[in-house]
């Protein structure tokens, strides 16, 4: 390090103020956060390039006008707080970018104090923390999901262990009826663990949808094939109604099969748990919704849902199935429908049944 004297003798030091101003400005402009200096009327005295890039030209505009689109100042304003008490303030908020995207931000305001001790202006720094917030949410979900998946898998292990014990006892006694009973329990749990594993795959972001032209009728037949035997063994009838005029459409076939499969499985479970003595019926339909859209419907005459259940349906790991569900099923449904830019309508009444309608574009 050179001494202050040596620095003073250096020719560059004569222009140090100019250089510092230029480099400060250039650093402020390239910072990945919004830096501004605001006057008492909340008008921009200074704004960095990041603000100009994301919100347009701030000259002559107010902070609330440019960043929020408001005519009046925000009801809770950290800049106003700093003007009032001359303190640094930190808070969180959201901003709508020119692209319409809503971003979560952390805001810090600090006073620029004049020689008379008054606040001449307020510097405001806003950092976009949307990605951090998203990562935080994902981490929470991941933690919960690990706990609940572990619960589900342990129940399946209990079934496998119990089933295997019954098979062994049957073989020991040369009682094949008993062994067969145990084997059915083992097979049921193999089916369960396969379903869980597939739902984990489809609920993760890793899998890319494979879009190709497919006839929706084929998808319904695939799903019926998957569940016909299982439903039959529970005394539940699967009925399919397909409009033969439906054209081929672009879709991720295995994703749509999984999505419908989860809805059908829920419908079967709802019938199984229904208290009335009617035969459980599950209808699977594929038809036009209107000229631009087609729909899949899964309807059951099972136990139906109350309003609270309906509201929580698509929340991660919400389940009413006690030991027999992770709540992953409808999350997978939701994710696949969103991948196809479609929507889901749910109609349900306690004691009458439920209808899930997935509306997708024909284009």
């Amino acid at each position, binding site marked *: 390090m050179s001494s202050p004297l040596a620095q003073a003798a250096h020719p560059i030091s004569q222009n140090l103020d100019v250089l510092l101003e230029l480099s400060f400005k250039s650093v402020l402009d390239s910072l990945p956060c919004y830096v501004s200096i605001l006057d008492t009327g909340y008008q921009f005295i200074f704004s960095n390039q990041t603000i100009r890039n994301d919100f347009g030209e701030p000259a002559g505009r107010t902070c609330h006008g440019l960043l929020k689109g408001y005519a009046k100042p925000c009801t809770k304003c950290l800049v106003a707080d700093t003007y009032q008490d001359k303190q640094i303030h930190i808070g969180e908020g959201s901003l709508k970018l020119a692209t319409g995207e809503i971003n979560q931000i952390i805001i810090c305001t600090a006073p620029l104090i004049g020689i008379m001790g008054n606040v001449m202006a307020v510097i405001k720094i806003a950092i976009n923390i949307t990605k951090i917030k998203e990562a935080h949410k994902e981490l929470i979900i991941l933690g919960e999901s*690990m706990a609940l998946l572990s*619960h589900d898998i342990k*129940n399946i292990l209990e*079934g496998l262990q*119990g089933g295997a*014990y019954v098979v062994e006892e049957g073989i020991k006694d040369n009682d094949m009826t008993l062994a067969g009973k145990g084997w059915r*329990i083992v097979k049921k749990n193999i089916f369960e663990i396969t379903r869980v594993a597939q739902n984990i795959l489809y609920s993760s972001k890793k899998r890319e949808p494979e879009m190709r032209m497919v006839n929706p009728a084929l998808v319904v037949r695939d799903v019926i094939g998957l569940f016909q035997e299982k439903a039959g063994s529970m005394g539940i009838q699967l009925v399919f109604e397909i409009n033969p005029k439906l054209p081929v459409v672009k879709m991720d076939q295995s994703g749509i099969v999984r999505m419908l499969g989860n809805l059908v499985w829920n419908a079967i479970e709802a019938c199984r748990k229904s208290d009335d003595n009617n035969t459980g019926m599950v209808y699977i339909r594929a038809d036009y919704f209107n000229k631009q859209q087609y729909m899949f419907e899964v309807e059951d005459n099972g136990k139906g849902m109350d309003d609270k259940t309906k509201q929580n349906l698509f929340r991660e790991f919400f389940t*009413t199935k*006690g030991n*027999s569900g992770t709540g992953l099923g409808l999350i997978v449904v939701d994710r696949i429908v969103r991948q196809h830019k479609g929507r889901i309508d749910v109609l349900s009444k306690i004691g009458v049944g439920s209808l899930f309608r997935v509306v997708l574009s024909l284009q």
Partner: protein
Amino acid sequence: MGKKTIMVVDDNPDFRFTMGLFLERSGFEVITAEDGKTGWEKIQQRTPDLVLLDVMMENLFSGFELCRQIRNNHLFKNLPIIGISAMAEEVGVSFNQETDQEYFSPNMFIDKPVDKELLLKSISDLLKSN
């Protein structure tokens, strides 16, 4: 001395069947119930020596509720209960005997999948101490 009777309360029919078979073949008389309500009725009729109780059943009259009912009844309050669930460790469903006494108080808690040796030892210990 006659066989001791164990009641298995679980909403999963496979669990009732496999656990019932295991306990019968281990020398116990077994009664089963698919929910807390049926469990409570059968407890009053048959007075089992021990209850093996799933705490995560779908029915509103869940394992927690049945446990409270047993503990609040002067005839059955000392009935040994083993709580069973696959949730114990992961989501912090751990019970403090002192603070959770009112809410849920099984004598002990066993995780699923059930370790059969541990289960038999626990049953034997609880039956002896009772």
